[in-house]
Structures are given as structure tokens and as C-alpha cells.
């Protein structure tokens, strides 16, 4: 069930009354030196030979460093130019009072997500996500139906409706609000058409502004309290009024708030520092964003993915730190470089699923394809591969060391292709859009890569 928000008025007051600082000085004099300090003091070192580390003390160091970083730096509110700071006792209070299960969806589609531990034998949840890829109005409902009909999907995220009434759904324009309303309506329509009216839907991606988010909330035709609403952390450890307004509305409306956070490796810090920022961002999610859960998508600054060697290390270690030291419910959101209907994207998806499941992610939130930047270049098959392979890792009772060996065998198949990855095909090229059936070409490729994972020792559930 949703957690009561942690002292919401007190949080909002900190955006008004916290210490003032210039944005440049926050980055230069507070954030970056403290990232460097905690990495050094806690002696956190990247080991490229072991992309899935098995060192519990290292995971504890990352947790401690993340707590240290968040309590020292706080969250910077860019609108008021103030730091929102918290004490250790306040953080402990919020962590202790956090729920360890989360109920999402309704009716026959109701699901419960549970916090997991490292190498947990309980199943992770699965959320199928076209993330925020642009989609035409023509294919929007059918793309969503294709995702929603996947039996493993506890919930779905939605693409961005690129145009409405022929106009771009440009942020802050009236067509953003119109697009947000239509986006929510189409999403509900798709859910009914696949017989899952209560499936929880991440809404409303087309509505970036707080005003348009409010406009798309409606229990009859739009975003319901049983759906999932997201409030971003601005990289790194920042927030603004728009986001706080969204959080406040979602709280007033009732329901589940997710913190959306994607620390950027290569922007403010190296791989170790970004791992620590990942933990600290989860703490901001709890204290500032009012998050009941987190959608976590750390990405490589250059390739916008988290399927490389160092990004898998980061993903694994941050989840080990979170799962070993808190009951925070977090979904591990994959970002692949390659596009649909390629070997590479299925390898990337499989590894992301395995690493997330073994390291303690509560939910497999899978997976953006083709760097999430090309029109309709995503399909449910990539998400299916990531989730089925992650569940296979749990089914096989994999230890981190086992996962490490699998990752080391599969990574060389694609890790030299990031500079010119295959972009594959679009949703209409991979699916018969009207009948919602994937092409035989893609399914044959899918079955072949799955067999390769089986040959590495994974036991798929079915």
C-alpha cells in the first residue's frame, strides 16, 4: 500500500527557506567535491573484470557513501536557488516508515510489488515499457495494446504521443495539454481492448508540465489513482517547482508516485561517483519527490544506455546497496543502444534483466531500445526478453558470481559496437500492427538468443 508522505509540508517549506546558493556554486563547490570525497573516503573502486561484484562490504560502502552524500549535499531547488537539507534522524524516520510492499492497479489486474534482497528467490515485478519513445497517433493505441497484452506485464509505461490534431504536442503549448488528455484516453482504451481495464499505466508522458499532468488526471477517462505517476530528479540531486507541483498534485489525488531518476555517468562524476549518486537519488526520491517507488535508469552520458560493462557494474552495485540496506522499492529501467529485431538488443536486454534481478531490484522495468530516440523504434519483445531472462535468473537461483560469469561471456558479443550500433526496425516493421502479432523473423531471432542464454545455464520458467 502507498506510504504516507514524509512530512510533505516540511519538505515544501525547505524549498522556500533552505540556504541560498547559486546553481553554479552548488555544482562546483558542493555537489562535485562531495561526490569525489565520499568515493575516496569509502574507498569505492570500479573493477572491470567483475561487472557483477559479489563484495557485500563494497555494497555497504556504496550505501554509506550515498547516505553521506545526500545528507551533506541535500537537494537543490533550481527555482528558488535553495538547498533542501535533511538530518540523519529525519532520513532514518522516513526509511523506517516506508512500506515494503506496494499495491498497484485494480480489479483482476491488481498487483503487489515487494522490496527484494540481493540474490532473492522471490520474483521481481515486471513493468513493460516503451519508455518515452515518440509514437504516431495512428499506431499509439495498437503499440500500447501490444505491450498490455504481454502476460508478464504487471503494468506498462507508455510512449509519447508525437502529435495531436496534426500538431506537435510541444511542451507548454495548448497541444501539450490536449495531447496529455488524448494520451490518457487512448491508454485507458487500449487497456479495455486487451481485457485488462485495471492494469496500472505510467501516465502521462506526453504531459511534461505540471498543468498538463493535472489536466490528464481523471478517474473516468484519464489517469486514475491506481495508475503510476512520476516525479523526476533533475540530474544530479535537483528539483524545481514544476516537479514539486506535480508531486503535490499526485499526493492530493491519491495513488502511487514514482521517482524517476537517471544519474548520468560522465557528466558530474566517474562510474564510482555516479553509483553513489544513484543511491543518493533514491534518498531524494523518498524525502523530496514523495516517491512510493523509484524508476531507476542510470545512463552512460555518451551512449545513453546502461548495458555496457561499467553501467552493468553500476546497476548491480547500486541495487546491492539499496537492497542490502533499505526496503526501498525500485524498478531497474534498462536502456539499450541497439534497436528492435537485432541480436544486440536482445543480448543487452537479457543481461540487464539478469543483473537487475540478481542484484535485488524489486521490479524489472524493461527496456528502452535504440537509445530511446527514434520514432516507434521499440517493441514488447525487448521487454519480454529482459523480463523473462531476469525471471530465469531468479528461477535458476543464480548467485552474483554466476551472473558475473554469464555477463562476462555475453558482453564481448556487443560491447565494441556502441559507436555504431544496429538500429534495427520500427514497431510497424516488427509487428502486424492491427493483429498485434510479431513477425516470424523477430520471433525466430528471439528464440535463438533465448537458447543461447539457456546454454549458459539459465532455466526459463516456460
Amino acid at each position, binding site marked *: 500500500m502507498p506510504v504516507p508522505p514524509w512530512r510533505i509540508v516540511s519538505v515544501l517549506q525547505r524549498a522556500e527557506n533552505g540556504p541560498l546558493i547559486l546553481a553554479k556554486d552548488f555544482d562546483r563547490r558542493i555537489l*562535485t567535491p562531495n561526490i569525489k570525497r565520499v568515493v575516496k573516503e569509502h574507498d569505492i573502486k570500479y573493477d572491470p573484470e567483475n561487472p557483477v561484484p559479489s563484495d557485500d562490504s563494497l555494497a555497504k560502502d556504496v550505501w554509506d557513501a550515498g547516505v553521506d552524500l545526500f545528507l551533506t549535499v541535500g537537494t537543490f531547488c533550481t527555482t528558488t536557488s535553495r538547498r533542501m537539507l535533511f538530518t540523519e534522524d529525519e532520513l532514518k524516520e522516513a526509511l523506517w516508515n516506508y512500506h515494503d510492499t506496494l499495491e498497484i492497479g485494480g480489479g483482476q489486474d491488481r498487483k503487489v510489488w515487494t522490496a527484494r534482497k540481493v540474490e532473492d528467490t522471490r520474483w521481481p515485478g515486471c513493468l513493460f515499457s516503451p519508455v*518515452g519513445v515518440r509514437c504516431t497517433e495512428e499506431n499509439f493505441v495498437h503499440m500500447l495494446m501490444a505491450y498490455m497484452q504481454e502476460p508478464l506485464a504487471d503494468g506498462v509505461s507508455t510512449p509519447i504521443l508525437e502529435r495531436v490534431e496534426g500538431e*506537435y504536442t*510541444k511542451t507548454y503549448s495548448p497541444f501539450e495539454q490536449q495531447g496529455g488528455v488524448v494520451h490518457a484516453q487512448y491508454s485507458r482504451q487500449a487497456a479495455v481492448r486487451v481485457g485488462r481495464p485495471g492494469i496500472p499505466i505510467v501516465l502521462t508522458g506526453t504531459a511534461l508540465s505540471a498543468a498538463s499532468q493535472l489536466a490528464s488526471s481523471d478517474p473516468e477517462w484519464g489517469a486514475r489513482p491506481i495508475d503510476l505517476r512520476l516525479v523526476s530528479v533533475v540530474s544530479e540531486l535537483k528539483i*524545481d517547482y514544476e516537479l514539486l507541483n506535480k508531486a503535490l498534485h499526485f499526493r492530493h489525488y491519491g495513488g502511487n508516485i514514482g521517482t524517476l531518476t537517471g544519474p548520468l*555517468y560522465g557528466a558530474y562524476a566517474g562510474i564510482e561517483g555516479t553509483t553513489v549518486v544513484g543511491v543518493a537519488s533514491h534518498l531524494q526520491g523518498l524525502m523530496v519527490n514523495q516517491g512510493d517507488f523509484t524508476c531507476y535508469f542510470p545512463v552512460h552520458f*555518451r551512449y545513453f544506455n546502461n548495458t555496457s560493462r561499467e553501467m552493468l557494474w553500476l546497476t548491480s552495485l547500486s541495487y546491492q546497496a539499496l537492497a542490502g540496506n533499505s526496503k526501498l522499492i525500485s524498478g531497474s529501467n534498462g536502456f539499450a543502444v541497439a534497436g528492435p529485431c537485432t541480436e544486440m538488443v536482445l543480448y543487452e536486454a537479457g543481461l540487464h534483466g539478469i543483473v537487475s534481478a540478481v542484484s535485488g531490484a524489486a521490479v524489472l522495468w524493461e527496456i528502452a531500445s535504440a537509445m*530511446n530516440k527514434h*520514432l516507434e523504434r521499440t517493441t514488447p519483445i525487448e521487454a519480454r526478453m529482459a523480463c523473462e531472462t531476469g525471471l530465469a535468473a531468479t528461477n535458476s537461483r543464480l548467485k552474483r558470481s554466476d551472473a558475473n560469469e554469464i555477463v562476462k561471456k555475453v558482453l564481448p558479443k556487443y560491447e565494441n559496437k556502441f559507436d555504431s550500433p544496429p538500429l534495427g526496425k520500427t514497431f510497424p516493421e516488427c509487428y502486424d500492427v492491427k493483429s498485434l502479432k510479431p513477425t516470424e523473423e523477430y520471433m525466430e531471432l528471439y528464440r535463438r538468443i533465448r537458447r543461447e542464454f539457456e546454454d549458459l545455464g539459465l532455466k526459463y520458467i516456460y
Partner: protein
Amino acid sequence: MSAKSTIIKLKKSIINLDEEAAKQATEQIIASGIDVKEVIEKGITDAAGTIGKKFEKMEYFLADLLIAADIITETLDKLLSAYPDSYKLGKKGRVVIATVYGDIHDIGKNLLAQLLKLNGFEVHDLGSNVPSLQIVNKATETNANIIALSSLMSTTMPSQKEVVDMLKAFGLRERFKVIIGGGSTSPEWRQEIGADGWGGTAWDGLKLAQKLVGDEG
């Protein structure tokens, strides 16, 4: 200390982001009357190049670029105040840069702005969430060579197009080169909106800007 070793000291202090050491080296240079042209060309310019490479290799990050740009600006100010006629700073180009309207994600934009400054461009950074008309007006007012537009979110990309459309409608398109970048953008989007270049990273953006002003670095 010889002129050469003092210049090396300044160069190293900039590369190491050591503000205090850079101040000391600058004071020594001013006191001993070392040729400012040589200091700029062999000390500061070389240091900026090294910092750019460190960023490309992911050894340096955004805050490091901010510090380096501040040190270089301060050093140049002091040198040129002490010897105003010693060197005419030639800017490689003038860039108006912004994250477009509706978008608050400014890391990529900030990185490119710092890289451009470090490499001799005059940069007018309008910040994030900037209305399209404001960008066009600033480019006109400053007589910029390049307009650089960043957008992370899919729903803010149309504002990049809006800037290009405005330039065309106002008869200004030929005056400026427009380059775009950001997480959701792509070469196909550049082509669709008629921009002059697309960069996948801040480093790509720098190379693109250098190419557009005829300075390949």
C-alpha cells in the same frame, strides 16, 4: 625561474584545476614581463586542449570544465589588464546556446558551453527553458555565428524546430548556423527540421561548431 618554466607552471595549474597555483603563476608572469602572446598560445591554449581531451576520455566532468573556464577567464583578465596592448584576443566564433522552451535539462548544454569557451568561442548561454523568440532575438542582437539548441525530452524537440522556422520566417535563416543536440534528438530529426548539424555528445557539438566556423581545432 625561466619564462618557459613559468608558462609550464601556469599550464599545469590550469590542467590540475589549481586556482591558487594559477594565480601565483599569473602574478609571476606579470611581474617578470613574459610575452603575453606566448603565455596564451603555449600555456593557456594548450591547457584548454588537454582539459578537453580529459573530458573526452571521461577523466574530467562538468564541474571540472566550470572550474577550468573560470581559471582561464580570470588569468586572461589579469594578463590583459596588466598589458592591454599585448595581445588581441581573437574569438573563433560567437555562439548563442540554450536548452529550449519547456526543457529544464541543462547538463549537455552546460558541457558544450564550457567546451566552447575553453576553445576560444564567445558564448552567450541563455540557460534552460528558454522561449524560442528570446533565442532568435539574442542571436540577432549579438550577431552570433551559431545557435546551439539542446533538448532532452521528446515533447520539447518541437521547440528546436520552432527556432529554425522563426529564422526562416523572419528572413534570418542564412545569417546563422543552427546546431542541435540532446538525448531525444537524432540525425533524422536534424534533417527533418532543417538544422545545420547534430551532435550526439557535447564533444561532437564542439567539433561541429569548429567545423562550421572553419576552425577544425
